[in-house]
């Protein structure tokens, strides 16, 4: 009995906000404001229907997914060779450079919002998907380099040498042998890039206005213009959980190593 009690309580507390979000998303705004109920009394799908039919809403998701995917692809493809260099070669200042990468993650994104805004406005990148994707690289490339370096250092250097001895050229070795050998690392790095880019709000909100407006921006702006459409917001919030849940499923066995930045 007591063996189950603590984990059960823990899970209940963890899931409570998520449950409440789902609960609200099936209610009308009037019911949310007027009554307190554990389940929706006037069950409605209107909130979801509104999101899937109104372009102002669903474009937010499309825009977000677009820049998140672009960011993930850029981050991982740049981090792969960088992480390989850090894990395999010794060069002047390598340890300092490696640590400096991590410090990029320590600054709050707000610090960079203004310079990015100015820069992108100057070169006509403002309000494009690539703008947000590039801005998020500032945080995601260092993270991906750290995660991948950890996974790569777990692969013995003799594997590289073995391949050269067998006659593999470097590019062929890297694609055919090395990348599959660190496939779980690539998956984890991609997941973390995806998640950070997906939940980041400040930069995406600052760097877009109409054409590439993110879902986070859509949600906040709706709240301020059309009063408090709480049911609609709850439905939109519930939907934002789904992409992360899908992606995490594929890397569920390696996720712990990702949090330790690939180090065992």
């Amino acid at each position, binding site marked *: 009995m007591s063996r189950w009690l603590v984990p059960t309580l823990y899970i209940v507390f963890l899931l409570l906000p998520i449950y409440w979000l789902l609960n609200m998303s099936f209610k009308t705004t009037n019911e949310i404001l007027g009554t307190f109920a554990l389940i929706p009394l006037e069950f409605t799908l209107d909130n979801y229907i509104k999101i899937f039919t109104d372009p102002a809403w669903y474009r937010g998701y499309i825009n977000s997914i677009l820049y998140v995917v672009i960011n993930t692809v850029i981050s991982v493809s740049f981090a792969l060779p960088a992480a390989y260099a850090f894990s395999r070669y010794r060069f002047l200042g390598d340890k300092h450079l490696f640590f400096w990468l991590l410090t990029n993650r320590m600054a709050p994104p707000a610090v960079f919002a203004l310079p990015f805004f100015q820069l992108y406005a100057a070169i006509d990148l403002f309000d494009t998907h690539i703008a947000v994707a590039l801005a998020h690289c500032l945080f995601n490339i260092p993270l991906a380099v750290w995660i991948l370096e950890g996974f790569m250092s777990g692969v013995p250097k003799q594997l590289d040498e073995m391949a050269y001895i067998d*006659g593999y050229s470097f590019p062929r070795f890297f694609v055919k042998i090395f990348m599959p050998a660190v496939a779980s690392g690539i998956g984890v790095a991609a997941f973390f890039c995806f998640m950070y880019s997906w939940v980041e709000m400040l930069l995406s909100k600052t760097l877009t206005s109409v054409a590439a407006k993110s879902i986070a921006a859509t949600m906040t702006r709706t709240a301020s213009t059309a009063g408090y459409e709480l049911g609609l917001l709850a439905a939109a919030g519930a939907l934002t959980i789904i992409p992360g849940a899908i992606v995490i499923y594929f890397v569920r066995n390696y996720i712990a190593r990702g949090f330790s930045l690939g180090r065992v």
Partner: protein
Amino acid sequence: MTHIHTTDLAFEDSAFNVLLGATLSGKTTLMRLMAGLEKPTSGEVWFSGQNVTSVPVQKRNIAMVYQEFINYPNFSVFENIASPLRVARVNQSEVSRRVQAIAELLNLSDLLDRDVSNLSGGQQQRTALARALVKEASLVLLDEPLANLDYKLREQLREELPRLFSKSGSTVVYATSEPEEALMLGGYTATLHEGRVVQYGKTIDIYRKPCNLECAKIFSHPPVNIATVSKSNNSISFDGVADWLCPDSLKDNRDGNYTVGIRPHHLTLSGAAANGYSVTVPGTVQLAEISGSGSVIHLQVQGNDWISESSGIHQFSIGEQVDVHMNLNGCLYFDSEGNAVY
């Protein structure tokens, strides 16, 4: 950093060569230089009459097996073995035929479809060996390939290895730190000490006639027993406790002190002095170990730490005074510089 000192070493072509030396003596570095995985700061590497110093690894037509079991983790056993052939663009039916043949030799036929990560250590190393064999490379480098295997597998593979490679006509270089392994593999041996090649020649010649004390030490396990003896005229005197006739090889050398080296199996404690065990010296037992069919006795003889290795199980108590019988045929003599005198 490991350094290889000024070294001239020419391995016998198409033969089984052993690199024998303790850990950190430079075996691996020498192999990496031959493979082209490392560039020498000075000096040259030649293969079959060609200077290959600046030839990249990929172009050298070599194969290598590491001490750690290194295989391509995402390939099946078949693809692991086939990998050098795939890179060389050998056609599918030829790849299939050669891989099957090698797998047969190494008892891997039933495992070809398996994932390498699910194999035992012995099977993984067999796969690595198969990959080295299938390439029919002109130079095969084996860097202590059996060191991480359990002893039964090690003995079995050690027997098979020279046979496997003798058919291919490759020049094989096998690094090991165990003298017995060098003897069992036969062929040629180069002894290494602190980055220097001490001696190179037929394994059995080096074992019988090491060129100096260092080489004798490398090629003896348990370590060779050493003592100082003095020669005057035709007789050799060991600390006043024993005298024997000077061997022919030493007759013409000057009188004075020499170092005698005698391998543990040329010392016996049991029975009467017979069958060539003609010299007897007094000793004190320090430690007695029993190794299955034999006994290893650690002794104190005239202030020297000696070890005797003899067949049969003999029980001694620590501190016991014993007669140590020496076989003079097994004695090696070294001058004051440590060079062997024959």
